[in-house]
């Protein structure tokens, strides 16, 4: 348990550093799509909700789990769809019009 905890902290720290380095390089041009993309990725919390909703550990767990899946799934679907729609609009000079 203790070792697991330390591993998790290391993972968090390293992921935080990677996040800073990677996201610092994102052009301000794309800050809005960046936000909707990270939002969709963040909805990975759905995996916890799925296990909760499906493991029959009582009404509370099932109800909360189910609502949580609905909320997260709408973020995943909506987030990816709108990010792609926004990115499709960014064209360089001289690019063909659609």
């Amino acid at each position: 348990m203790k070792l697991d905890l330390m591993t998790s902290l290391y993972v968090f720290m390293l992921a935080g550093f990677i996040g800073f380095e990677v996201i610092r390089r994102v052009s301000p041009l794309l800050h809005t799509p960046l936000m909707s993309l990270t939002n969709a990725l963040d909805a990975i919390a759905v995996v916890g909700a799925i296990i909760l909703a499906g493991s029959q550990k009582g009404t509370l767990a099932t109800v909360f789990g189910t609502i949580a899946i609905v909320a997260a799934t709408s973020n995943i679907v909506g987030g990816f769809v709108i990010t792609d729609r926004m990115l499709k609009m960014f064209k360089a000079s001289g690019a063909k019009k659609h």
Partner: protein
Amino acid sequence: MIRSEHVIELAYLVATALFVLSLKWMSSPTTARRGVRAGEVGMLLAIAGTLLHHEIVDYTWIAIALVLGTIIGVPLGRVQMTAVPQRTALSHAFGALCVTLVGTAEFYLKTPDVPQFMMAVLSLEVILGSLTFTGSLMAAGKLQEVLPQRPITYKGQNLVNLSLLGFTLCIAAFLVYHPEQKYLFPLLVLIPLAFGVMMIIPIGGADMPTVISLLNSYAGLSAAAMGFVLDSKLLIVAGALDGASGLILSINMSKAMNRSFTNVLFGAFGQEQASAAGAEQGRSVKNATAEEAAAILAAANSVVVIPGYGMAVAQAQHKVRELFDALTKRGVDVKFGIHPVAGRIPGHMNVLLAEADIPYDKLLDMDEINGDFPQTDVALVIGANDVTNPAARNDPSSPIYGMPILDVDKARTVMVIKRGMSPGFAGIDNPLYYLDQTLMLFGDARSFVGSLVRELSGS
């Protein structure tokens, strides 16, 4: 033998890598769509893997919820581009709702045997989750204009907010040592729910970019905390990436508004409202008609357009595109200078102008464009105010002194399209309007730009 746990762990590992790549590819518009694909594949892998989990015995509700979520998600992905700020706020609320619900259920399943560290991160998860939930709903309401956009402040606001937060942290600390006192747990959800509302009440529209970024960061951190509770490395990584992203954006935004980061962290926005308006009264401004302005634009070699929230409100971006075309056709070099806090979320102006088919290599951020103004013939300000105020550079008594601005006053001619002489969000008069080289173009942004286009194509 390969067991299902191994398959799941491998799927999570690949998904984690794809998430990092997804963000990496967001660095440039040429690779960004590949980033979305990577994210989608990672997400599918992770969900498919999770469905194999041995604890799942009943798929009915999972299936219903996945379908329902998709049904809600598709229209949320298809909203008008002008509704993107409120959609973003709403999605932060949904993410936070998911995390809060899972955290709450986990607590009641585990109590009274909750190890201390787990109780600590679980508290963090539900506190951040609940305050982000109501805070984001409030932000979405203000952006959708179902709630009043002006900041509502009262005496002792910060004290009330900080005591609420402090009280919640005390309860959380107590629960860490006494996780069996489960009647206290609802407070960890309810007080932050109230705090989320209180936090957004004093915030005005122009501070939204910072607040939305901050809520983004909170949503990410609460998901990372959930990863600690569920011992899911995938969730920790995704949450940390989202948290870092939101944090970077909020730091950028607060720098662009010249506010300290502690100011941001405590949600103390819009508190130092200035009463400097009216100081410049009595000075005269020069105004011009569309015909006169079009003649100057047509004779220019280089034009920089400075869009602001007013352009979004007036829905003028497509007319601006027509102006861009008309001037480009005449051989005028047209660029756009975009301040980081122009609009209601980071990058707002870029999305609107890209939607209007303006090539992204013409959209330059503040640092890139500022050196160009002394060689610019015309700086055309459309619906922006405080971000062009030279007082931020040269008047130490101004409340926005020190805020980085677009140096439009260095251009040979400045044109400002504005409805009237009312001051901007900060309530500060803009000396730019009284300069010798400034022409005020009074009118609605969309119709005025429309008349400019007509004049240019007519002559």
